[in-house]
């Protein structure tokens, strides 16, 4: 059992070291080195890393490129935001008593509903009155959606660029839905003004620090879960399917089921990230559900290295920090600078940061062995060959 945990969940020696380094950075270095504002910013970034980890599983290993992960991320976020909003409305009602003028809203109803002449809570908002139900729905809603999309697409053998385009279109539809159904979703403003979770102040700086740690731990948990999946026979099947789908089918596997499964896992992880995002920033907006953030999520994954779960986290942090830094320092040029970085990464390091690290450690190792071994003995450094994206 002990060796199972060590080999499968932690990924052996190098995997354990990698995970430990990330844990130290997230749980010690950042909290010690950063003030509350910056740390909260990192918490926000990390909630996006959940999506990147999901993409490593479904894109890097499974070969399924989705340009619509924001959809699942957003749904997870909206589900939790709905719960927090109802709590906020209850608090306002409690403070104002039964006085509608003081409450500025129909008692117990989210403010945006009142503004949209909705006087009764829509039926699908009812489950969000309960925290356990909400927590289930945070995962269930996006996963069921992913299951439906996956079954519909993969059973018909839609793949590659076609699948990517369809996910992007769905993502855009989702944004439209959230924007146009103002009374149900808060429209273009999203769901704002979220303050407490069961009375616990999520805007309080000290509590935000706690939320940061919760986010980090859950993220590390997702890495371990990802490793468990990749270490199983299913993980090998994903790689096999990505490279030689026909052979897997003619080995007696129903390829569509496996693709749907990993797509659902990626969706569920994204949803968790969305929920953590809402807790970290205190609002949810349809602008976060749409195409642009979805593509950013793919970029996080590509920059970090789409074959590396840990790389996805670093990729998210690097791109997000880069975005903040460039936009603060070069307000006119930052988009071009970001674009330049992405071109550089794809051309020079097709396997991303993780590929770079592997190469460097490979070089160091080969130098070390060249120094001790007989001179002239060449150690083959395998060239990173990027697998086809689909």
């Amino acid at each position, binding site marked *: 059992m002990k060796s199972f945990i060590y080999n499968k969940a932690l990924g052996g020696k190098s995997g354990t070291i990698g995970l430990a380094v990330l844990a130290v950075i997230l749980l010690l270095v950042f909290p010690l080195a950063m003030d509350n504002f910056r740390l909260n910013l990192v918490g926000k970034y990390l909630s996006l890393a959940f999506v990147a980890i999901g993409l490593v599983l479904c894109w890097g290993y499974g070969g399924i490129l989705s340009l619509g992960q924001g959809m699942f991320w957003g749904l997870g976020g909206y589900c939790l935001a709905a719960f927090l909003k109802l709590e906020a409305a209850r608090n306002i009602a409690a403070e104002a008593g039964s006085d509608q003028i003081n409450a500025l809203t129909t008692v117990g109803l989210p403010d945006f509903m009142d503004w949209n002449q909705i006087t009764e809570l829509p039926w699908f908002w009812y489950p969000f009155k309960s925290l356990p139900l909400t927590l289930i729905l945070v995962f269930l809603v996006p996963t069921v959606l992913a299951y439906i999309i996956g079954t519909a697409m993969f059973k018909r053998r839609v793949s590659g660029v076609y699948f990517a385009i369809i996910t992007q279109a769905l993502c855009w539809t989702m944004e439209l839905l959230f924007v146009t159904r103002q009374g149900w979703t808060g429209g273009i403003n999203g769901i704002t003004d979220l303050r407490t979770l069961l009375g616990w102040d999520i805007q309080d700086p000290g509590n935000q620090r706690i939320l940061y740690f919760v986010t980090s731990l859950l993220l590390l948990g997702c890495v371990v879960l990802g490793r468990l999946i990749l270490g199983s026979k299913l993980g090998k099947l994903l790689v096999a399917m990505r490279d030689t789908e026909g052979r*897997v089918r003619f080995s007696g596997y129903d390829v569509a089921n*496996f693709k749907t499964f990993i797509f659902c896992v990626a969706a569920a992880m994204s949803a968790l990230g969305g929920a953590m995002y809402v807790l970290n920033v205190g609002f949810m907006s349809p602008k976060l559900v749409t195409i642009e953030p979805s593509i950013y999520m793919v970029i996080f994954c590509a920059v970090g290295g789409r074959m590396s779960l840990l790389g996805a986290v670093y990729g998210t942090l690097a791109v997000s920090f880069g975005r903040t830094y460039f936009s603060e320092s070069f307000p006119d040029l930052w988009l071009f600078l970001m674009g330049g970085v992405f071109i550089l990464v794809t051309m020079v390091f097709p396997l991303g940061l993780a590929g770079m690290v592997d190469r460097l450690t490979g070089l160091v190792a080969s130098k070390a062995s060249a120094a001790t071994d007989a001179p002239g003995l060449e150690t083959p450094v395998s060239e990173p060959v990027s697998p086809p994206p689909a």
Partner: protein
Amino acid sequence: MSLPTDFALAVENLTVSFDGFKAVDSVSLYVDPGELRVVIGPNGAGKTTLLDLICGKTRPSGGSIQFKNQELVGMAEQKIVRSGVGRKFQTPSVYPKLSVFENLEVSVPKGRGVWGALFFSCNQEVRQRILEIARDIFLEDELETEAELLSHGQKQWLEIGMLLIADPELILLDEPVAGMSVNERGQTAELLKRIAKGRSVVVIEHDMNFVRQIADRVTVMHQGKVLAEGSMDKVESDPKVIEVYLGH
């Protein structure tokens, strides 16, 4: 409804047309249990299409395919495989980024569902079986090698091994010795004879020496139709076969 037969594989009046072109045209073919059948014929004769039809990769326009009296037409590919039909493709298709061991492990016919695969454990029994197959296909020293680094011939063997580990009752092999050295061909002939014990094998092949070494019976195809069938000697002396395929 056709009556139950003793054949392992009974193909009857099988036809498929692509935009009016009949790649396979009313082909009938009967393979006995334990028989090793070789299908030969010039390029474009419909040999590979025939195998595609049997394993479900292509849907026929008409006719029937019975495997152990079970109709295969209309069944999903993975179900055909699970009923005991294994297919090797013309260009070796293995999993390039997995090791030889992992290639075989993934082909083990256990844990074929999502949850089964997730909780599949590669126990001693499975390991033993993989080693056994690896020995059969001459790859026991390459277990940790990534499949993309194998030679062409070794990839062919590996794919055969991936079929064998599922222990199918009918194996369809598309040009198993293409790209192999003379030496490797000899080894493969031995291998095929060994694996043909207790199961039926249908092989497509061009190398006539190789065919002579392995075949129980030979079917010659030409322009989507069966031109001749019988023992190698009989087929070789058939004037029609000499005309279209073997040459004078």
